[in-house]
């Protein structure tokens, strides 16, 4: 049995044995299903399980891309694909004109609309594949330009809603002005911000942050006072006083509202709790280290006691080091016998999982000989 088969069996066994128990406690089956799916997904992502267990909706994700997409680089299976910009902001057919920087290039736009042929029907049922079809940008083959090509202003509207005003103006103008807009729009989200700054003529940008809010109110009040005819000097004093008070209150509110939680290491007990193994029967290399260290210390006591003072500190730091990195080598097993003769150690382990060089190896029995 391969490692991955054993893992899959373990997952199914756990879920099977928990199903009745959860049902009797009133937990919905969907929760257990979700646990299983997430667990299997993580195992696949880690590479511990090579192939997803037989699942009706999973197989379709591995269907190869249609023949006419040979120019497209291979895309990973849709279910596990990390979200790309295309998936987060799904490209509608109307949006594809945005990808044409020049008016002369028509193929990408055409590609989206052409009746794509019989091979597509085989992949239609998959929700993710529809997205993949639209990802096939590079296909460069020409098609006869269809009548809708001339409906470009209509096609552009969805993506550049703020340009509705301009579209009306540009209806009679030839294409180059439209392409100029495409250049600015191709910058992604930036385009909206740029547009906002230029959208309001006159250059006044209303302040969005809160710093000047109170002061602007005071300014407004003062402007009203001016109208009622107060003298300038009195006005200045009043504004200064009011402004000072307001500034003080702002500073106080900001100081008291912020409570910075301390995240540096005052409490190290949490890590120690995780290190509390069953002392009776199981052991891993760290524990073996402790046992060995004690023996070593006894042997050297007569000669150089001070040398051992710092040894425990190093091990303690190891224990309290927090989460081990995922590629650290590890053997988790139950020991049957550990013996030592002078500097030669022999141990017999059983039922173990070794994680070495990023691979998992399971064993029923292990014999080890170490000399140090």
């Amino acid at each position: 049995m391969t490692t991955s088969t054993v893992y899959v069996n373990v997952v199914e066994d756990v879920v099977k044995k928990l199903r009745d128990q959860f049902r009797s406690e009133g937990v919905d089956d969907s929760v257990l299903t979700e646990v299983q799916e997430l667990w299997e997904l993580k195992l696949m992502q880690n590479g511990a399980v090579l192939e997803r267990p037989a699942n009706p909706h999973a197989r379709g994700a591995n269907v190869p891309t249609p023949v006419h997409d040979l120019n497209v680089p291979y895309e990973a299976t849709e279910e596990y694909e990390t979200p790309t910009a295309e998936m987060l902001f799904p490209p509608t057919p109307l949006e594809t004109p945005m990808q044409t920087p020049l008016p002369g290039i028509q193929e990408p736009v055409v590609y989206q609309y052409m009746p794509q042929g019989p091979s597509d029907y085989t992949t239609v049922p998959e929700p993710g594949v529809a997205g993949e079809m639209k990802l096939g940008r590079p296909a460069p083959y020409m098609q006869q330009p269809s009548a809708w090509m001339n409906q470009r202003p209509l096609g552009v509207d969805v993506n550049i809603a703020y340009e509705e005003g301009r579209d009306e103006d540009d209806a009679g103008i030839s294409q180059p002005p439209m392409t100029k807009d495409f250049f600015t729009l191709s910058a992604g989200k930036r385009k909206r911000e740029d547009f906002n700054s230029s959208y309001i003529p006159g250059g006044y940008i209303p302040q969005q942050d809160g710093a000047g809010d109170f002061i602007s109110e005071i300014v407004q009040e003062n402007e009203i006072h001016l109208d009622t005819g107060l003298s300038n000097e009195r006005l200045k004093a009043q504004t200064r006083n009011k402004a000072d008070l307001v500034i003080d209150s702002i500073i106080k509110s900001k100081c008291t509202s912020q409570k910075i939680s301390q995240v540096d290491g005052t409490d190290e007990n949490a890590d120690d709790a995780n290190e509390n193994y069953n002392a009776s029967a199981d052991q891993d290399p760290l524990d073996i280290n402790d046992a060995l260290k004690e023996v070593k210390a006894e042997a050297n006591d007569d000669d150089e006691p001070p040398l051992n003072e710092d040894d425990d500190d190093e091990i303690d730091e190891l224990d309290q080091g927090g989460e081990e990195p995922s590629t650290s080598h590890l053997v988790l097993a139950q020991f049957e016998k550990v013996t030592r003769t002078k500097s030669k150690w022999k141990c017999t382990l059983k039922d173990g999982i070794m994680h070495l060089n990023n691979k998992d190896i399971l064993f029923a029995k292990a014999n080890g000989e170490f000399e140090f």
Partner: protein
Amino acid sequence: MATFELYRRSTIGMCLTETLDELVSNGTLTPEHAIQVLVQFDKSMAEALETHVKSKVTIKCLKSLHSNILWLRSYLKDGTFAHLQIL
């Protein structure tokens, strides 16, 4: 009955722990149920290792060292593995 929790530190155990952490933090699962899942995992994992796995491993590490940290590392670099897998 107490179970051996050491297998929770393996790859499969860590994946399960992460899954349960996510579900508990978004409220899908209660912590008590999560602990039940972990305990059942301990039992199933131990049983699977006993029954399904038959392979034997011999480990030899013949280089002598002075500090425990170095011992761990060269355990892997200089040790010779003879891995006999019985299917």
